[in-house]
């Protein structure tokens, strides 16, 4: 019994990481329709920010807390810069944004390699997060890793913050207006260019936050973004473009599926089976779990 519960928790924690990574994408890919392959490198930028901060701040706990907003700003600024330099020229050619931003991601990876060196580095987790919580004691104990619980909390907080921003703030209204009808928004006096850049800032900033979280579960290296980005894109595709609800549900479902399949087969076979499951799912719902209702033919 505890084995099953333990596997469930592993799955949920994989899902939480996926969710954090995919959250920023649901804004830049889902809302803005830009396939930003450099998103993975913004995650990497967040992770390295944590690493640098820990070099200068001795307390691991404080440096982690400082890293969250700083990483948000660093990655967000990178995202806004990218939007301003390249992406705003490419809004009508989503497939080309994929390849162009992949070129950007190559350069950012090399930049990281030149600055921090090719080998992976590691940060110290604060003492609070290194332990486990024992949920069921006895001969057959069930324990949850504190760092995983922290990531779960962080992911949920980020989802709530993003949802509230989109739903309640003037900025969120403007973003939704631009997504739904760019031309109408423009003639209504919304500066769509500025809204685009702000949305990109937030989406990329969330990647930075995800990067901070990833330092708790793995090493930091120049290629860390590439390893996670595809999974995050799949979450968006299966969840439905621009659907926060879909992103959240699918991240957890895929996390649990991955964990269960890994338990019953191997890691590599599980990856293949998850992909097969996704293709099968798209047969049933080609537009993803949730879709905007529309009468458009495309």
């Amino acid at each position, binding site marked *: 019994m505890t084995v099953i519960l333990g596997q469930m928790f592993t799955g949920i924690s994989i899902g939480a990481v996926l969710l954090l990574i995919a959250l920023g994408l649901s804004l830049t890919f889902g809302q803005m329709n830009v396939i930003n392959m450099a998103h993975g490198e913004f995650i990497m930028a967040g992770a390295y920010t944590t690493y640098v901060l820990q070099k200068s701040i001795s307390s691991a706990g404080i440096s982690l807390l400082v890293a969250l907003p700083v990483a948000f700003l660093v990655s967000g600024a990178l995202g806004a810069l990218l939007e301003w330099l390249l992406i705003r020229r490419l809004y009508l050619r989503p*497939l080309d944004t994929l390849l162009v931003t992949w070129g950007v991601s190559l350069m950012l*990876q*090399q930049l990281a390699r030149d600055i921090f060196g090719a080998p992976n580095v590691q940060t110290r987790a604060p003492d609070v997060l290194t332990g486990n919580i024992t949920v069921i004691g006895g001969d057959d104990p069930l324990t949850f890793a504190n760092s995983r619980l922290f990531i779960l909390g962080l992911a949920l907080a980020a989802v709530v913050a993003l949802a509230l921003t989109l739903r309640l703030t003037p900025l969120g209204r403007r973003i939704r207006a631009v997504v739904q009808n760019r031309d109408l928004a423009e003639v209504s006096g919304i500066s769509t260019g500025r809204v685009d850049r702000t949305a990109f800032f937030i989406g990329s900033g969330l990647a930075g936050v995800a990067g901070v979280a990833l330092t708790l579960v793995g090493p930091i290296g120049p290629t860390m973004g590439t390893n996670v980005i595809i999974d995050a894109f799949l979450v968006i595709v299966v969840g439905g473009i621009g659907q926060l609800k879909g992103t959240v549900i699918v991240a957890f479902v895929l996390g649990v599926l991955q964990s269960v399949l890994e338990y019953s087969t191997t890691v590599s076979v599980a990856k293949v089976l998850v992909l097969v499951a996704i293709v099968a799912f798209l047969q049933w719902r080609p537009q993803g779990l949730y879709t905007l209702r529309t009468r458009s033919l495309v």
Partner: protein
Amino acid sequence: MTTTPPAGIKGRFAALRPAAGFAVGAVVLFAVAPLALSDFRLGLLAKYLCTAIVAVGICLAWGRGGLLTLGQGVFFGLGGYAMAMHLKIADAGPGNLPDFMQLYGTATELPWWWQPFANPLFALAATVLLPMAVATILGSFIFRRRVKGAYFAILSQALAAAFAIWLIGQQATTGGTNGLTDIQGFFGYDLDDPVNQRMVYFIIAAVLLLLIALARQLIHSRYGELLVAVRDSEERVRFLGYNPANVKLVAYVVAAGMAGLAGALFVPAVGIISPALIGIVPSIELVIGAAVGGRASLVGAVLGAVGVAWAKTALSEEFPAAWTYFQGLLFIVALAFLPGGLASLVGIVRRRRRSSRPADEQGIDEKAPVLPVGEAV
């Protein structure tokens, strides 16, 4: 070739142009290159030509059909592994296990899915048919449900990732991260012998020319027109009574077969196939050449693939960091500012020179070799 003929016989010259270009290509590949290049350089060229073969398929699927397939590495790998498995079995000799299996000692006899590859005919057929079969299954699932554009690109990329991870995980039967290495013979010929290496080069060059001719026929057939129509306006094609899913499927499957063949030829030319050659990064790198040269133009895609592969060898060994920056920049400049690739420069220059002729291109620049529309059926 670039001289402008007098106006009267211009049409006739234009019709001859592809044939002339083809002849020039054949002379360069079969006479100039083998004479001018050392054995080592010729071996490298053989490797580049393999990526050019993949680029022919990418030109068809992406340039013409708008299907950005970022998973060509999968098909390249399927072809490559099918060939390498046969060559490994042949190298080991009858009754023996391939060397890496003996090393790991996990398998006492050939795994069941290796056994058919002992047959050379089966293996040869599999190098092309296996990728095509996988593409057919996957493509029909994806296109039938109208999964397209970015979704398709991401799924094809995920496929490349999953395939590479699976290969790495099956250490005992696929060689894991190392892949299948140290291939010595090619259907009874010793690959260490430079004469046989030359033979491999000639085979690759011939296959490339053959596939270019095939792709050209496809592009200029009615099917080719339909493919471009699906790329530009899928709904209109559907209203006209065609099924866009089938049109796309054919392009995807043909491109997969070409990539498989390229992978199969890559193995004797280089002597190795491994997951590092077929994952996400190499899969995208296969696309970059076609993008830089010109995705919609066969000549552009092929020359771009060879050029970028050459630049990679020339630069990456001496300045690995500089090459990565350069590669990234190449991507950005080519796609953001010159979406038709270098091949579109020819058209832009020509249009500027004869500004009297109205240019009515729209969308991505589509400078295919000029040919009367509907000439071939």
